[in-house]
């Protein structure tokens, strides 16, 4: 059986159920790299130029860990999933870059996903991937449809039941993800609602963000993430703040940021990495909006390869203290 390697980094959290269904329908076996470790980060960093962003370094580490584990590595170049809205350059060149920096990697299954090129080109791109397994276009079509259905189910699971992507992935597939706990038990005594905004590969990679969600839950906070907002609400929020989206994953930052600043959260924390081009501007837009509204506290955390957890913890504690004090004061005023 052909083994397809999927790195547990970057777009994994958005599309894994879809990819897994697609390849399994075509009779392949899917191998996922293990959660990020310090070794992966160190190995990945040694391959790319220093000012490459952290998620891409980690991605290279994951690819390196898969080198001897599979026959192909699946790295799509997701250019655009919305009309005239493009992805970051690093995603566009990801297959080419991986090939250049990791010459020993197994053959890379790459394809260009670009909805601007029209329906036909999109279907052909999917068929190009499927062709490695079967010559029968109908079989690829069936696999594609099943994959799309899996993706819709996955999205619905997150937006309707309030699961985070790792929890939802654990739900839809049999892999034991991080901690298979239900969202309710940690939130039973929740007092403060904190919304996290940022790209899934930052929010759910526990190595990058120093178990940020876990820490919030330990502090008895209810955690909201961008996936828990429906697409329509996100689009509405983007339209309110910047008009038209320019980046593919703008809804995770600007959309979710604007949505949570206006409603539903006691505080918003934006997570970005050092040197992230799109985020450097998008997070700034959210920060400006937070200042303008002046109602919901906002904190932006910039992560990089540093391993000093204490810095993250200190800032988180200070932020939570501030919110708690603000809440107490409001209660006092009401009385």
């Amino acid at each position, binding site marked *: 059986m052909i083994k397809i390697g999927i790195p547990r980094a970057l777009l994994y959290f958005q599309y894994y159920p879809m990819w897994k269904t697609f390849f399994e329908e075509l009779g392949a076996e899917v191998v996922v790299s293990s959660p990020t470790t310090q070794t992966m980060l160190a190995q990945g960093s040694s391959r790319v130029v220093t000012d*490459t962003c952290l998620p891409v370094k980690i991605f290279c580490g994951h690819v390196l860990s898969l080198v001897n584990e599979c026959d192909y590595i699946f790295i799509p170049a997701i250019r655009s999933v919305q009309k005239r809205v493009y992805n970051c*350059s690093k995603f*566009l060149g990801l297959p080419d870059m991986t090939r250049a920096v990791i010459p020993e990697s197994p053959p890379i299954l790459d394809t260009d996903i670009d909805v601007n090129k029209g329906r036909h080109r999109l279907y052909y791109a999917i068929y190009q991937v499927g062709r490695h397994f079967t010559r029968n276009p109908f079989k690829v079509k069936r696999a594609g449809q099943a994959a799309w259905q899996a993706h819709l189910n996955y999205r619905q699971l997150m937006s309707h039941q309030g699961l985070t992507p790792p929890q939802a992935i654990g739900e839809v597939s049999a892999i034991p993800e991080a901690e298979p706990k239900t969202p309710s038990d940690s939130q039973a005594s929740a007092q403060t609602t904190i919304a996290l905004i940022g790209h899934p590969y930052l929010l759910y990679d526990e190595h990058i963000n120093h178990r940020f969600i876990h820490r919030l839950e330990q502090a008895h906070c209810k955690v909201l993430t961008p996936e828990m907002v429906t697409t329509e609400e996100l689009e509405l929020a983007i339209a309110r703040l910047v008009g038209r989206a320019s*980046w593919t994953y703008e809804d995770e930052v600007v959309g979710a940021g604007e949505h949570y600043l206006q409603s539903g959260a006691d505080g918003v924390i934006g997570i970005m990495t050092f040197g992230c081009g799109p985020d450097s501007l998008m997070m*700034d837009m959210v920060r400006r909006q937070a200042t303008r509204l002046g109602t919901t506290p906002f904190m932006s955390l910039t992560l990089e390869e540093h391993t000093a957890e204490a810095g993250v913890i200190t800032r988180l504690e200070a932020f939570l203290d501030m919110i708690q004090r603000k809440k107490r004061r409001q209660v006092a005023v009401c009385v």
Partner: protein
Amino acid sequence: MRLAFPHMGNIYIPIKAIFNGSSIDVVFPPLTSQHTLSLGVKYSPEMACLPFKLTLGNLIEALELGADTVVMPGGAAPCRFGYYHKVQEAILRKLGYNFYMITQDRGIMNMVKHLSNGASLWKVITALRFGLAKLKALDELEQLVHKIRAIERDKGEASRIYREWTRAIDNAADYQALNQAKREHLQKLMNLPTVSSPAPLKIGVTGEFFVVLDPFANMDLEIKLGVEVRRSIFARDLVSFNPFIYAFGLREKDRSHKAATPYLSRHVGGDGRQSVGEKVLHARDWDGLIHLEPFGCLPEITARNIMPSTKEWLPVLNLIYDEHTGKVGIINRLEAFLDMIQRKKRGRVAVCA
């Protein structure tokens, strides 16, 4: 309406020519200076790239001079450039300026309609043609000076004539004056005393558009180099959507894109693919390549990751610019790079003999 544009190298000259005859009052902010940079850095998000900071500084200076409409190109692109205007508008509004921002985000026709201010189509086309003629003259001049600088006997003469010629192009009111300036200065440039040996090094300059084209941003790199500079990025590429220019501008770009295909088969936004392509394309005929980028440039980081893996071999020096102004650091690295190439060349000659 008082219109303002941010600066990028000499681009203000053709823009001035285009709007000269129209009823629109165009305000030009002072040429980019240290003050501009400080203003830009002060109000920009810290991780925004250098072009963002410089153009923001320009816009602030223009608004201080009383501009009420600013033009900031934008549009959907994978590079951050397409997003600039949204953030810059928010920053400028926060600073309390009242203005209207024209971007191509609201459609190119909307942009043209605003900028033509009710002038007839014929007038618009005539003005555009003259502006483009100036742009072409400037680019040709630059290309010529790139060669002369390497072989002139008295260093700095070519740059002096270049500045004079640029001023003459700026002042030219019609095609005749433009040609007159060309005749005069070409003569001067060609009559400069030159040295014939040793043959100058041929160094390519490529990278991110803005930093390559703006002498303030790249700290006068080309003047400092003192070698024959080969460059295929020119300001006229910027208007390549224009049918008049299309035929000139894109040919070189297409060639380098094709050359890059085995290593980078996709367009990654900005000039990333071209940077890889130029290394591949000119490995035989250039002695070295200098690759410029602002710190954090998305397409160029992708390109820089791919460049070392090409089969075609060419020494490459990466220079990354941000708001720090350590000119000496740049000069040191240029010297070391050129020394290395020179030594390598000498070595090769010795082996041949």
